[in-house]
């Protein structure tokens, strides 16, 4: 997994609903495709995505093979206080990629 891209406003007003857009590169191999030798290519997908806001989980998703390669996920949250959002992606190989983003709330 490479460095994911996260897009959210740098600052927001208290109580404002902000949108968070995320993109990470990953093959999201379904496990239904066969390789050149006719054997099934083993499944390797990001099956879990979570987002915490100052330590509290605000959004999570279980993903299945139907999610496209390089998963793009958009969700919302209420800006409550300045701090940090931590987003993490976990794939079938057990690798977890965590990325943080700061937000100023006034």
């Amino acid at each position, binding site marked *: 997994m490479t460095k994911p891209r996260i897009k959210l406003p740098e600052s927001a007003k208290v109580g404002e*609903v*902000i949108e968070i857009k995320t993109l990470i590169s990953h093959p999201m191999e*379904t496990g*239904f*495709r*066969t390789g050149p030798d006719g054997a099934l290519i083993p499944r390797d997908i990001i099956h879990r995505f979570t987002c915490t*806001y100052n330590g*509290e*989980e*605000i*959004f*999570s*998703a*279980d*993903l*299945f*093979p*139907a*999610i*496209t*390669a390089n*998963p*793009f*996920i*958009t*969700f*919302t*949250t*209420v800006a*409550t206080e300045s701090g940090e959002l931590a987003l993490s992606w976990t794939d079938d190989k057990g690798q977890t990629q965590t990325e943080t983003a700061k937000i100023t709330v006034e």
Partner: protein
Amino acid sequence: MPGDQPSRRTFTLGVAAAATALAVPATTALAQDQTQAWELAVRKIVGEAKPSEGKFALELPEIAENGNTVPFTVSVESPMTEKDHVKAIHIIATANPQPGVATSRLTPLSGKAAVSSRMRLARTQDVIGIAELSDGRFLMAKRPVKVTIGGCGG
């Protein structure tokens, strides 16, 4: 004779039970495997509850030229308060080899019940969205999508 009653009743019940037992495999045998898979997936989420319609928007293209990447947005009208919020949104693709697409879990801190992503669709089919509400109710929406080129590889 009073002694007759129970045995007659048992007999009728027995016949009825046998009839249902016979009827069940007959109907399932007619249904296709994949139909069963998505119905099971829906059943697994809603249990015995009956999902209602409305206040639920499932945005998908009517025609997806490339089934490998079909953008979608689901949004549910909800005040998103502690008492009344959307707990989860499930997406199911009825004719995919594995019907489940994604399950998003939301909290009152989500502010809005809106999620977007991109999915793969193997062929032309119905896509179902199920919203799980904090009071235990379910909302369901269904949208047909025409797929020009399937998106499941080989």
